[in-house]
């Protein structure tokens, strides 16, 4: 019986009546946190929308300078990591410890691959003098707008990368805990919460990808 496993594993924290209540609280807590994150990214997306409207030509020209091959590969990497993460949550629900650990490690590895590719992309942009404030030079009548685009690009992808890095660390911690048998079908809300956070970070990328790479290339 799952309940027996749970009571053997760990009692709920003192403020909760049961483990069930504790998991419910964790779940509503992460959803509330993700709501704040939407607003956090929302400020930058608003700025993007305002300047995209003000400087359509400059933003289109800037969009064509982005590295669409790396960006597209990264999108696939990140989407795959969401699949492995979702699998990890299922494995936790089914109490399959080794599969859970493996999938968590795979998720973290895909996340690391994304960050690595992102770093490669940044270094190429640095070589092409596309980093506002540090090294920016672009011969175009729309240079100011292009600089604004790249400023927002670095802010948005930078904040996203910070989120992803935090996610990788949390997923690795979960992998270690899973390996030690900390989770059971009755108690695995940390894995679920991590999964929700991971999917959110992916979802942010799904919004960033067309804004950054497809703008100016289509339509």
């Amino acid at each position, binding site marked *: 019986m799952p309940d027996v496993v749970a009571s053997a594993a760990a009692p709920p924290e003192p403020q909760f009546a049961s483990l069930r209540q504790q998991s419910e*609280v964790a779940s509503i807590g992460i959803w509330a946190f993700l709501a704040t994150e939407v607003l956090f990214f929302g400020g930058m997306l608003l700025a993007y929308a305002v300047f995209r409207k003000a*400087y359509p030509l400059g933003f289109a020209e800037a969009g064509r300078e982005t590295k669409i091959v790396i960006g597209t590969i990264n999108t696939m990497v990140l989407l795959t990591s969401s699949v492995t993460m979702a699998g990890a949550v299922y494995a936790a629900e089914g109490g399959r410890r080794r599969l859970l650990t493996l999938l968590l490690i795979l998720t973290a590895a895909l996340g690391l691959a994304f960050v690595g590719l992102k770093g490669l992309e940044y270094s190429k942009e640095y070589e092409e003098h596309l980093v506002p404030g540090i090294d920016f030079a672009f011969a175009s009548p729309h240079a100011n707008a292009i600089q604004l685009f790249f400023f927002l690009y670095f802010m948005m992808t930078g904040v996203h990368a910070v989120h992803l890095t935090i996610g990788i660390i949390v997923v690795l911690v979960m992998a270690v805990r899973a390996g030690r048998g900390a989770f059971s079908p009755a108690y695995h809300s940390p894995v679920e919460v991590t999964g929700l956070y991971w999917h959110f970070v992916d979802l942010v990328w799904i919004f960033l990808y067309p804004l950054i790479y497809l703008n100016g290339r289509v339509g």
Partner: protein
Amino acid sequence: MTAAAELLPGLPSRPIEPESYLSDGFTLRSWLLTHDHKRIAILYFASISAFFFIGGAAATVIRLHLIDPAGSLVSADTYNRLFTMHGVIMVWFFLIPSIPTTLGNFVIPMMIGAHDLAFPRLNLTSWYLFVTGGLLTLYAVLAGGLDTGWTFYTPFSTAYSNGHVVIALLGIFVAGFSSILTGLNFIVTIHRLRAPGMTWYRMPVFLWSLYSTSVILMLATPVLAITLALTAVERLLHVGIFDPALGGDPLLFQHLFWFYSHPAVYIMILPGMGVVSEIIPCFARKPIFGYRFIVWASVSIAVIGFLVWGHHMFVAGESVFSALVFSLLSFAVAVPSAIKVFNWTATLHGGWITFEAPMLYALGFIGLFTTGGLTGLFVATLAFDVHATDTYFVIAHFHYIMVGGMVTAYFAGLHYWWPKITGRLYSEWWAQGAAILIFFGFNLTFFPQFILGYLGMPRRYHAYPPEFQAWNILSSAGASILAVAYVLPIFYLGWSLFRGERAGPNPWGATGLEWQTPSPPPTENFAETPTVRRGPYQYEPEPVPQNA
């Protein structure tokens, strides 16, 4: 009585304390690593009190300076740094956290019959974030300060201001996450940790107010955080997202800033309304009038509050159509606010009213908040606002809501729950005296500023034409009274900690679960989880024996 008391074998220096959260460990570590919401509330109380007196000291110097039209006390540059310091510290390090993190933290779990907040460690983390942010900002102030005003308008703050802008922005950014996490913790706690039988409509109004406040904390603060981050990066790297010279848009900054900072005004006032809604029924011995109207008024203020930020930008270059819409929506906020004022008044009607210190503060709140709210309608009116923008009229309006409203409500709540928090009663005579002095001093300080603003005296100037001097002297005289009145509680509340009479569990004869535990409460709040069978405020209009 005195003779009998002397015969008792008293231990005046170290009386035997009953088991409580205060006796659960005496080391510094037991405080700094505590997960107990009550102790964290005390940590917050100590920190925001320090910030209150720092911000207050800056205000005192400002008022002293303005006695003289030529402004000879401090230099113009120092004056700019003083009002910036006053604003930044008072808004982010006193008013925003004031009631939620201290009184809210302390009483939320007790009011709903829980043992703690949903995330006790997160609660402690929030305090550390707050202190880190506070110290960073304090460093910026002590290392020379900044002269941007608390609003950090671009491009001045990013391109021209010389001062420690980036460190101050970083401090507010970090403290912002403390706000976000506190709001999140409160929301989850209220949703999931209510005792059996504690339905939404059986919750005290204070919880509804804090719930509404938490929604704003969670949804508005992230926007401030990212705005300040963009501002800091722009200042550091000279890229122009808000700088028109580089294609950026300074109005975008104002939109983003006020998208947070106007709802922030409701972060500051909603908890105050909640406190007053607890105190009025208790000292009028009557159930609150129109409970559902009051709680939904809180929620609607939170919701409409998100849609009025543009009224800060009437003269900033917003289109006439936008200005009209924002003006109309600003008027809409007056409706739920007025519902509250009318319902408090109706609660008083026919009650058995007594005038203990919390009640004096609460009544003061109603008067001052109403004045502040009504003048808010003046500045929401487009035609009048063009005349009043950036004058002392706006300063007076804002301070009537924030100081007359929020600070008064904070003191009301502090006096109301002080016996619960410390287990001791303070001197009623001194507390009532301070309450009256604060009301008098406050009005003398800020009412003349309405007149000054109407006459056209602009804000933020270190010198002014001599014809404004008489009103300024009145205002500064009021400020000195106010300063003294705000210091008084340190003495009589401090005295009560050591010499105050034992309060007993329920000195006010109040309803509410928090009054059913001993004072001070035990660490786990309730020996066993209570079951709730009635709504709040089941008062009968009849006299209560003192110290029942």
